[in-house]
């Protein structure tokens, strides 16, 4: 079942179009990455999902129905720049935000104590946010976002500003929430986190959805028929054997005699032929397809080379 469906959403501001006919579907229980260069329209899309702004045209469907004010109780949103009152005490502040999301004061306090315990930050309860470091404040913000156990969590650049240890902790919390059935959308520039965490992605560039789908499928689909051969033997011999049937992109040899060569094979039909030729000239240790990283795909897509 799809928890969120965005249909032909267009949003324009006075001077520019922020989203141009964007459609995407987010399956329930998945982690969905929203990628794109700065200014592509990611934050605008997240704001539309949160009903902060309304689109000029198009629809947003939440659990199959047009999204309504009531649905915000089922959504948690953490904006890119952290929004907390600097002069307010951590505990009171968290209770305040929880109550705005419809929780009672009592429930909120009990749940918060639980989360604070989990993160080992119980003694922050009576401190002001202004006294905490940026990373510490982000932990608090994360807790206030997930506290009311929404079905859908939306994080705008969740990893920015976290040190590697806390970023890892955040990652594992996100995965744990997914395992409990929560659907998570996050926007990011951090491509390695996309590969590690995301099930699906959408790439937005210049206000348009230019690429959508399952991460593994996308990577395989956009594999560019590049292969890597590692072998023992004479580099010249391999060069000679492969000449004419494929393009040699890169060749490395080591003193220990373990050499690698990257090649581009024009058509799938040629793959067996290439292996045959190579096998007869050198001793092959491995032959594998090079699957592009999301980073490569991102850059190629944005440059229009996909």
């Amino acid at each position, binding site marked *: 079942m799809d928890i969120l469906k965005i249909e032909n959403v267009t949003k324009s501001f006075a001077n520019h179009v922020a989203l141009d006919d964007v459609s995407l579907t987010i399956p329930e229980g998945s982690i969905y990455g929203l990628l794109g260069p700065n200014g592509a329209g990611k934050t605008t899309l997240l704001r539309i999902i949160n009903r902060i702004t309304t689109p000029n045209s198009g629809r947003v469907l939440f659990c199959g129905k047009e999204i309504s004010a009531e649905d915000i109780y089922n959504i948690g*949103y953490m904006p890119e720049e952290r929004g907390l*009152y600097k002069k307010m005490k951590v505990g009171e502040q968290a209770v305040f935000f929880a*109550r*705005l999301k419809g929780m009672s004061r009592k429930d909120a306090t009990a749940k918060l104590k639980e989360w604070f315990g989990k993160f080992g930050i119980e003694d922050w309860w009576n401190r002001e946010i202004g006294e905490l470091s940026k990373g510490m404040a982000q932990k608090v913000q994360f807790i206030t976002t997930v506290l009311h156990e929404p079905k859908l969590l939306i994080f705008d650049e969740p990893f920015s500003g976290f040190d590697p240890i806390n970023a890892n902790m955040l990652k594992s919390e996100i995965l744990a929430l997914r395992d409990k059935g929560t659907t998570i959308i996050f926007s990011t520039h951090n491509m390695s986190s996309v590969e590690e965490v995301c099930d699906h992605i959408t790439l937005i560039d210049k206000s348009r959805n230019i690429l959508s789908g399952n991460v593994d499928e996308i990577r395989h689909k956009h594999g560019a028929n590049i292969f890597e051969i590692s072998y023992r033997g004479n580099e010249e011999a391999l060069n000679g054997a492969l000449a004419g049937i494929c393009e040699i992109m890169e060749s490395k040899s080591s003193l220990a005699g373990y050499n690698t060569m990257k090649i581009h094979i024009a058509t799938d039909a040629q793959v067996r032929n290439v292996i045959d030729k190579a096998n007869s000239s050198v001793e092959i240790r491995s032959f594998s397809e090079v699957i592009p990283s999301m980073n490569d795909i991102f850059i190629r897509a944005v440059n229009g080379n996909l």
Partner: protein
Amino acid sequence: MKSKIGIIIGREFNERVRKKSFIITTLLTPLLMLGLLVAPMLLSTYSGDEQKKIAVVDDSNIIGAHLQSTDEINFIETELPIEIARKEHLEEFAILHIGKDIMSNPSDIRLYTNSTASITMEMNIATQVKMVIENIKLQQQDIENLPAIIASIQTEVNMQSFANDTSEDSGDKANSSIVATVIAYLLSFILYMFILLYGSMVMQSVIEEKNSRVLEVMVSSVRPMEMMMGKILGVASVALLQIAIWLVIILGAGYFIIPELIPDEVAMAVAMLQQGASPETLNTDTDMSLLQAIATLTDVGYLAKIVVSLVVFMTGGFLLYAALFAAVGSAVDTPQDAQQLQTPITIPIILSLFVMLSVINDPGSDLAFWFSMIPLTSPIVMMARIPYDIPTWEILVSLGILVATFIATAWAAGKIYRTGILMHGSKPSFKELWKWLRFK
């Protein structure tokens, strides 16, 4: 969606009321005001001890003997000629030289001061000399029984003023215009301060929330209009609490202290005056205007009317201006950027203060009437008129206009706010604000 406005009001109220600065200003301001009242009295009592010595060189040989030393001035006659006296009497505060021809030429008198003389002191000396000369001239007319005649001529007028209200059965109530003036001044000034202070507090706090992106987190769960109204009402309740505490302190102190200060005989006279007794029947030698002032100040009905009007007009005026301040705050990123946009808001506030000064002299004038109807100036100007018993319908009409304007303003401000809180970067122009206002 259930309204969250209560939660927001609660937060605004709690955060502000618990601040040390709030507690301190709330408790210290009445003390400070009391100090401002008492200090001049104390100062004058103490400075009275310092009597200034003035050496008098009297070439006319007429005036000098009649000059009377007072608490402030001690006249010492000297036989020295003026040139020497000016060199010798450097210890004294000043040397007064009365010329030979003073009787025919009133300008023939000079004061040489060794330090700066105050205007009151110069006036004091001049008046004394003038009276002495006049008396001597009168005596030279050779009128019989002169002192008796003068005594019988001297009169003091005690005029009482009443509100001309024939419908009331209780008789004419004396009201003191001195008290009304003081109260009018005080109240309209308090109103001015509160609107400006608490209004810009709303603006500051919107800017802060916008910068810290708190608004962005909140806007997903609360409607912008509720956020804005919650903030305004939260701050308004803080302002009302402060006023309430002040009133309790002032009225409480008045309730316990005033009866202690007033002699029984005066209190009786005041009570009779309040019940509508005409002044002639009162057997008292206390100054009539003082009696009236006390009567007005201790009139519960009058005070209640003032307090209720203060609360109502302060709330109305604050809500109106706070909505405007909130709209400005939502449109900018820094308080510096707000300067230009808030000018059109502060102008009517300051204008009301100027109008108020003229209204106090003539609360019934056309100027006073119209400015107490125009919604942006009405809270402060009306507050300056209410102590002078103006018709109730005027107060109600003014209040009605104020409430209607507030509703319209809040609606418009809400539209600007809704767009403004998500806009970062450049400072918008008035033209852009107008565009935001018309967004669907």
